């Protein structure tokens, strides 16, 4: 895809984040969508392309009163929205539509109007994973981490530092769910969830949503907000069964999507001013730093423990507080994208001074899928 041909011209989250017992899941989508429309200075009738995940495009388009000429219902887990951005950019460039709305929302905590997840007993997951006691992401996502730690020499304390550093970022963010400082000891003494991970190494469970609006870079300059351009993109999938990943030392989906985006953007790792790596659990930033090529996996634990990703560090990472401390409604990718857009607009609560390039990397399922978007505010 050609660089900087498409831009984000509208971006917003739901009015509230956290516990929202007075809204169903589809209304959370609508709340985020209406906020993004207002942010872009548009009307819903201006939208001719629509993408969403979990909820179907037909459900949400009808609820919102949109008549799209292009839809994308790619639903590969929490990074679905990175893939939507990539697909939308291609669709806009191909002339299939002009103005795309992407929505995400989940009533992840209050569970209002949200269908429960179900694994059919005759699916491959139902036959070869469910009988052995996996029960929700906390029992599945950390399964590779002991092997990752042994192979790369990563310590429990380093994995605790991921949560500590992200709480430092969250403390700067008025909308973060958890803002009180924590220590390595706090993390390692918190309630055991699925060894080796404890409560403070697992993402929050909240309600909320977000929406993005994309259009051509040519049109973008006429919008009220500073345009944020799509510089590079990548995507891939591996397997819905965590047991069947090619290796636990790294993620194949990450290793395909990340480098694709860097190549497309034509940048090196030194050019990156701001980084988001979807952190459903504390090991994901380590996989991401290694698989995206920032450094060998062996160095990732020390890199974070030494403070390189904290406020004032040389590689600001997960500056909203991440899924561990900001919010996590179930499919966090949209919130990572929102933070990258805020950083590129220069309006983030913990703004990285003069940031010009932001890399936003997402995961779907338990390393099942991946999407990477590289943004810039310079054309």
């Amino acid at each position, binding site marked *: 895809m050609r660089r900087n041909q498409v831009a984000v011209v509208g971006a917003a989250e739901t009015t509230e984040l956290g516990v929202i017992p007075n809204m169903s899941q589809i209304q959370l989508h609508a709340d985020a969508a209406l906020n993004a429309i207002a942010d872009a200075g548009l009307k819903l009738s201006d939208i001719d392309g629509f993408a969403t995940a979990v909820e179907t495009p037909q459900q949400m388009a009808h609820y919102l009163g949109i008549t799209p000429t292009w839809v994308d219902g790619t639903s590969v887990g929490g990074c679905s929205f990175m893939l939507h951005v990539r697909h939308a950019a291609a669709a806009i460039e191909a002339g299939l539509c002009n103005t795309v709305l992407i929505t995400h929302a989940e009533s992840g905590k209050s569970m209002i109007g949200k269908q429960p997840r179900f*694994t*059919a*007993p*005759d699916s*491959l997951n*139902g*036959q*070869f*994973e*469910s*009988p*052995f*006691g*996996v*029960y*929700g992401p*906390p*029992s*599945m996502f*950390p*399964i*590779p*981490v*002991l*092997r990752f730690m*042994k192979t790369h020499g990563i310590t429990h304390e380093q994995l605790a530092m991921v949560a500590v550093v992200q709480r430092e970022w969250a403390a700067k963010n008025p909308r973060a769910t958890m803002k009180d400082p924590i220590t390595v000891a706090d993390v390692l003494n918190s*309630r*055991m*969830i*699925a*060894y*080796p*991970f404890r409560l403070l190494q697992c993402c929050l469970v909240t309600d909320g949503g977000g929406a993005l609006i994309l259009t051509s870079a040519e049109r973008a300059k006429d919008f009220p907000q500073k345009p944020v351009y799509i510089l590079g993109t990548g995507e891939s999938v591996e397997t819905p*069964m965590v*047991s*069947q990943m090619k290796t*636990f030392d790294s993620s194949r989906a990450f290793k395909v999507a990340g480098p694709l985006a860097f190549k497309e953007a034509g940048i090196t790792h030194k050019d990156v001013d701001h980084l988001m790596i979807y952190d459903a659990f504390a090991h994901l930033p380590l996989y991401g730093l290694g698989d995206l090529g920032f450094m060998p996996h062996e160095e990732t634990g020390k890199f974070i423990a030494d403070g390189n990703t904290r406020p004032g560090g040389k590689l600001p990472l997960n500056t909203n507080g991440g899924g561990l401390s900001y919010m996590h409604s179930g499919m966090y990718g949209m919130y990572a994208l929102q933070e990258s857009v805020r950083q590129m607009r220069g309006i983030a609560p913990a703004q990285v001074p003069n940031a010009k390039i932001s890399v936003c990397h997402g995961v779907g399922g338990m390393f099942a899928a991946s999407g990477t978007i590289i943004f810039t505010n310079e054309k």
Partner: protein
Amino acid sequence: MAEPARAKPKPTPETQHFWDGTKAGELRLQRCDACANVYFPPRPFCPSCASRKVSVFKASGKGKLYSYVINHRPAAPGFTPPYAIAIVELDEGPRMMSNIIDCPQTPEALELDMPLEVAFEALDDKITLPLFRPAKG
């Protein structure tokens, strides 16, 4: 009311041979006749070279502990926490999820790369699960 039971697999035409195998006390894998790739989970073609000429064979039942979690909460129906959810790397190459029996469910007892051997546990007259225990000797 009956106690909640552990999730029970329901075989499909492509996986029936595997579940027939566990019921007969055999761990059955598939090998590609064209490229010799051994793979899991079951399917009637080779995911490496796409050949439809594949054979079912009885695996050794031996492997090693590749990775695991010890799940505390939330616990799956039919499980009493804490319990380990393990990934076993079979000597033939493929990996599969399972549980480790006859072994304390602790980080001290569950050492990565420890040798394991298959054990079979019948859930009912149709389904038997392949579990693993520390290898003897």
